[in-house]
């Protein structure tokens, strides 16, 4: 009887591998889930891209939910995501804030001129220090911050119409249900 132990152990291993192959078809293995979900967004004070004299802080943004979309002119995938933001950006229902990550302001502005600007507001993090507090490790990434300044959802990778329908809109709707 004990002779069958290796056989059954191996079957478990095969099941695990089968799961692994299946899981890979649905998930990006490189995604690291954020520990900041349902935690307050880090305190930030970042200059506006088009007017560096003005600073946007977390406190100033309280009161309404909004999306932070991390992008950069050097980021290829952001270029792929951009048309989606241009077409869906208005219809999502919450303000879209652009977070320019580790970019030259001139290049970022030129990029937005070329591809269009879907953002109501663009803030710039040239050094990327604040982005570390957000747990950003690549671009594009998108955060949903609620009215109280708590991060409720993070998308790693480009936003697609499918993701917006399946994940983002329900998350926003859930927020609406909480606050009248």
């Amino acid at each position, binding site marked *: 009887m004990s002779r069958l132990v290796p056989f059954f152990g191996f079957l478990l291993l095969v099941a695990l591998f089968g799961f692994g192959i299946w899981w890979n078809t649905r998930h*990006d293995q*490189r995604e*690291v*889930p*954020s*520990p*900041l979900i349902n935690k307050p967004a880090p305190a930030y004070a970042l200059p506006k891209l088009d007017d560096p004299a003005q600073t946007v802080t977390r406190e100033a943004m309280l009161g309404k939910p909004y999306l932070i979309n991390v992008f950069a002119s050097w*980021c*290829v*995938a952001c270029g*792929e995501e951009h048309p989606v933001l241009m077409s869906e950006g208005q219809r999502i229902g919450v303000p879209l804030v652009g977070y320019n990550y*580790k970019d030259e302001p001139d290049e970022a502005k030129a990029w937005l001129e070329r591809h269009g600007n879907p953002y109501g507001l663009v803030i710039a993090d040239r*050094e*990327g*220090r604040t982005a*570390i*507090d*957000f*747990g950003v*490790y*690549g*671009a*594009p990434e998108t955060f949903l911050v609620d009215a109280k300044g708590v991060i409720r959802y993070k998308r790693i*990778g*480009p936003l*697609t119409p*499918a993701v917006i329908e399946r994940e983002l809109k329900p998350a926003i709707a859930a927020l609406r249900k909480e606050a009248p």
Partner: protein
Amino acid sequence: MNAVFRRVLFALALALCCGALNAQAIDPLPFKDHAEETRFQQLTRELRCLVCQNENLADSNADLARDLRHQVFDLMRQGKSDAQIKQYLVDRYSDFVLYDPPVQGSTLLLWFGPLAILLAGAAVVVVTVRRRSRAQAPASNRNANDSSPNDEGDDW
């Protein structure tokens, strides 16, 4: 454009820096002495680069890795302990940033599994040896079926 292609593009953006070893990991920092430098090296070796996910923070060429190395250096200068620095990164990037999995509920199997296997195996070895030693044949028993005739000395 389908989802797979998009994922591939994103992965490419992350992977490009990892494939090209353009030596940005060589990053002289103003250490005050060898002990501080050694501590930094040991710390950054235990942290994973989130961009080049199979490299540690010490060796990765990614921009983020350089930023995080500088952050670790600043925290060291601020007097934070190794545990505090690790916690700082875990708060932002989750446990995944640690190469040393924390001993907690979710990793019990990982840390104690080998011990369990060792104990089970040791039990089998003990039982086997005892069973074999009880069935003792008389000493210097060498019969004709011996597959290794002992003309080499030392029971070889």
